[in-house]
């Protein structure tokens, strides 16, 4: 039967994921019944992935403005001014569902998609970071050996996919983070952040303007791959059958994308390009109606002219295909040849497939017949918006279960063995095995790559400046307390950026959650958004974009709510970039603490139960995250930026996963054979003092000569700075209240930390 002969019924609409209400809205917009192609178009545009229908009302709470913000959410990527007439264009996006169905291609096309978002704006991508979440890859109470093997395979596929795409494209993958929890076993998270640079006057936007201007299709041919790929895969929960959706996952061609990048940037230079948008989720559908809607125009295209990879594709298939590496341009009438010439030079298909119209319609022709005719603006902007029911989850037993944490170790007990185990846990261990598979140096801007500092730092050639980036998130904390957990994500990313010496400047977020139709998931979402908003306001980092990924559930089990935050920072003087490595024997180690009163001595230890140590050593996920003190974070950030700017510090490293002891060890591991001898005092148990994860703290080192200056500056910002030890070449030794609690050769600690991931991933 021909597609045009299929009668659209409410049942068919339901099969396309449209509710009865949504279908009624379609009928109202069109004033008639849609044909099958139109139904398909509505279904993808109004899918959760494309329409943000469940999240829209919450996202309005995020702070998105600031003097530095040129473009907030709503375009292909956010844009902030960074001085010297330059702009940073950046965004983080998820590719979770495809990466579970097909880890390699899912992750690869995740990288491809976000890179297109960046160069669509006229910016050359200069860095990529990834936030990844997997199920456990070492023996775990809640995972069978088969599950662990599968988790390793997924990790291997995802990492290879990111490497394949980013390396070939020629963008450095400069940083990121990886965490492991059983809830991600059947729903890994792949969040990719890309950063690009453009001159302010060279920015491009996706607004179709100029009635009569030609619409040009560029790049890969359209195939049947990826129909309902991102848009629908990401808009429903996973079931046992989800693996059958493998053909829905797109296939990436980084070489094609590299050609597209160079050709698009060159075409933009001609001055003849009016607007440009990539074809990502919902492909041709999304790019045409969004460009028309934003430009206040209409677009008419003729599908017969769309380059096609396969024969006899129907309008439905062509409009919904998510074939990768395609772009849509609007070009000034009369100057088409200049643009087409550029694409010809790069060996790319570039075809005029339509024109900008004044009637506000997305009109799709196919061999002379009208295959679809829909008002563009209502399609793109007036989709359903839901205020879904929210409800806090019933208190879970494990949340209360402090008793599950058997008593703290006895006073003065030797914690060396526990410490070594903690260092070797996948969450803490070196990620070298992963990041060495990524080219993190190409384009020769990477001042600080993975493993060298708290944030990745890339310089901007031709200026004195550099940009710092960090992505962070803690699903376990967000699960225990979504609002506080989300605030921590912002605070940690901002702190990391400040530790590199950069002033936190703007943020992007990727919100990974379960099924929004469940009230407790929406509650988590609402709480997390509020937490992000509060922290972003306090730390002066407006949100400039990002994405929402719902339906991260498999067989009815949701992931931990996992917002990942990317914070961008600006270093006025690239030569002041700070790493985490200790630099010289005899340097003084100082603990910077933003909290005025110091550690809350009255706390009962609840915050400690949510730590990496409690999880790894005692198998406990309970309690609540440490309280966040945003004013303290702010003081710490300001102090770090001031200290770095004056060149007072030799190293800086924030305290996060694994606490103070891990921070100290990592500063040793990153150095050339240096160690630390530290003496601490306090009233809380030693485990808590060493491995507690309270925020607003950093471990820094400085030379004895500059110590006084450090104290002066810290005092100016009302920050407590305490000398806790010395950089040495001897044993790694920590004393607590006068008794040695950790004592080991730094090399043996380093070995446990450095090789753990490799050991886990290369033993089958």
């Amino acid at each position, binding site marked *: 039967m021909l597609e045009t002969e299929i009668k659209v019924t409410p049942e068919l609409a339901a099969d396309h994921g449209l509710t009865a209400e949504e279908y009624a809205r379609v009928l109202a917009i069109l004033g008639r019944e849609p044909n099958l192609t139109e139904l398909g178009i509505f279904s993808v545009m109004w899918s959760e992935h494309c329409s943000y229908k469940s999240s829209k009302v919450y996202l309005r709470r995020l702070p998105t403005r600031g003097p530095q913000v040129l473009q907030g959410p709503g375009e292909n990527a956010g844009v902030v001014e960074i001085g010297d007439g330059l702009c940073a264009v950046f965004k983080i996006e998820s590719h979770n569902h495809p990466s579970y169905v097909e880890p390699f291609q899912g992750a690869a096309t995740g990288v491809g998609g976000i890179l297109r978002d960046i160069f669509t704006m006229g910016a050359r991508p200069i860095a990529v970071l990834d936030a990844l979440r997997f199920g456990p890859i070492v023996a775990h109470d809640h995972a069978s050996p088969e599950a662990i093997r599968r988790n390793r395979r997924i990790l291997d596929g995802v990492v*290879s996919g990111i*490497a394949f795409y980013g*390396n*070939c*494209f*020629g963008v450095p993958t400069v940083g990121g983070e990886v965490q492991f929890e059983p809830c991600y076993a059947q729903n890994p998270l792949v969040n990719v952040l890309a950063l690009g640079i453009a001159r302010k006057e060279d920015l491009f936007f996706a607004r179709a303007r100029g009635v009569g201007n030609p619409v040009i299709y560029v790049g890969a041919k359209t195939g049947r791959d990826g129909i309902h790929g991102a848009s629908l895969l990401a808009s429903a929960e996973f079931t046992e059958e989800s693996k059958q959706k493998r053909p829905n996952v797109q296939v990436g*061609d*980084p*070489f*094609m994308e*590299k*050609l597209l990048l160079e050709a698009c940037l060159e075409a933009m230079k001609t001055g003849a390009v009016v607007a440009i948008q990539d074809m990502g989720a919902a492909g041709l559908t999304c790019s045409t109606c969004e460009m028309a809607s934003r430009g206040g125009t209409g677009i008419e295209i003729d599908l017969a002219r769309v380059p096609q990879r396969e024969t006899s594709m129907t309008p439905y298939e062509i409009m919904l295909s998510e074939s990768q590496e395609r772009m849509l341009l609007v070009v000034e009438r009369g100057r088409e040849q200049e643009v087409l010439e550029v694409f010809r030079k*790069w*060996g790319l298909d570039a075809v005029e497939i339509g024109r900008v119209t004044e009637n506000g319609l997305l009109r799709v022709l196919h061999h002379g017949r009208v295959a679809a005719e829909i008002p563009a603006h209502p399609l793109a902007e007036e989709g359903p918006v839901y205020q879904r029911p929210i409800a806090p989850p019933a208190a879970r037993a494990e949340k209360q279960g402090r008793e599950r944490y058997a008593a703290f170790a006895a006073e003065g007990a030797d914690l060396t063995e526990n410490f070594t185990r903690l260092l070797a846990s996948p969450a803490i261990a070196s990620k070298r095995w992963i*990041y*060495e*598979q*990524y*080219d*993190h*140096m*190409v*384009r*020769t801007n*990477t*001042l600080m790559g993975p493993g060298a500092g708290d944030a990745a730092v890339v*310089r901007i*050639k031709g200026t004195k400046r550099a940009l710092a980036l960090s992505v962070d998130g803690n699903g376990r904390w967000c699960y225990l307390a979504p609002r506080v957990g989300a605030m921590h994500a912002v605070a940690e990313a901002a702190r990391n950026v400040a530790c590199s010496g950069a002033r936190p400047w703007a943020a992007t977020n990727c919100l990974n959650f379960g099924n929004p139709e469940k009230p407790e998931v929406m509650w988590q979402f609402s709480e997390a958004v509020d937490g992000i908003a509060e922290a972003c306001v306090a730390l002066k980092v407006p949100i400039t974009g990002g994405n929402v990924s719902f339906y991260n559930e498999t067989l009815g089990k949701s992931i931990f709510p996992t917002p990942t935050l990317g914070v961008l920072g600006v270093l006025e003087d*690239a*030569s002041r*970039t700070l790493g985490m490595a200790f630099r010289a024997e005899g340097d003084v180690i100082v603990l910077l603490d933003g909290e005025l009163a110091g550690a809350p001595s009255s706390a009962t230890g609840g915050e400690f139960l949510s730590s990496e140590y409690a999880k790894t050593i005692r198998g406990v996920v309970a309690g609540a995250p440490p309280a966040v003190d945003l004013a303290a974070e702010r003081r710490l950030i300001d102090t770090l930026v001031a200290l770095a700017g004056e060149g007072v510090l030799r190293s800086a490293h924030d305290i996060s996963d694994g606490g103070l002891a891990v921070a100290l060890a990592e500063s040793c591991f990153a150095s050339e054979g240096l160690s630390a001898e530290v003496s601490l005092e306090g009233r809380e148990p030693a485990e808590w003092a060493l491995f507690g994860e309270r925020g607003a703290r950093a471990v820094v080192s400085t030379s004895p000569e500059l110590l006084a200056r450090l104290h002066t500056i810290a005092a100016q910002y009302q920050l407590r700075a305490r000398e806790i030890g010395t950089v040495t070449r001897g044993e790694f030794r920590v004393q607590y209240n006068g008794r040695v609690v950790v004592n080991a050769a730094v090399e043996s600690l380093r070995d446990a930390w450095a090789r753990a991931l490799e050991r886990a991933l290369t033993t089958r």
Partner: protein
Amino acid sequence: MKFGVIVFPGSNCDHDAYHAIGTVLGQPVEFLWHQSEAVDPYDVVVLPGGFSYGDYLRTGAIARFSPVMRAVERFVRRGGLVLGICNGFQILLEAGLLPGAMLRNAGLRFSCRHVHIRVETTETPFTSAAQPGQVLKLPIAHSEGNYFCDRGTLGELERNGQIVFRYVTPEGREHPSANPNGSLTNIAGIRNREGNVLGLMPHPERAVEAALGSEDGLVVFRSMLESLTRQASSDPLRVSA
């Protein structure tokens, strides 16, 4: 001295080489499109790293058929200096301008990190400014850098002093643990018999500024400049306009 950096579709270290030569060394440098055959204005032609044609068939296998490669062959016959870095090295192998072939890395994975290589001979225009046996710290970034050739070819390379760089420990010792990709006898770079073509897997152009972790790559570029200056002063007819 004028450098030309070839741009193949998929080259992605072209800008890095350009920056190293133009900005760091302050030498005249231009991009050279792969369909051009105009290599004559240049004293040195650089084949940069990257993924020419996506490396989809075999690394360098398609790029060697680019029109510019015909011109590069003539340029080589005339004695012009050609430097192939990473993918550029792979293209030179495919083009037959250097002997041998590349296999996948022994670990079958892409590897990006700093390694140490030892200068095996200073009798080349690419290493004349180095000390014999000098150890250089340079980055690698490849998944097919496992150099291989037959026994006869290896013997010839050794006899003719064509092995220019070997992977070594930081102390300069040849050891399997210092070999990042399984390369035959730790070979990191070779020259042609005539000595005017060098291919190497590590990236000297990424190691020309201390801020990026190493300046050891400078010696390769300085050697070329010195050699060309010497050549120019001894042979006035070779001076380019």
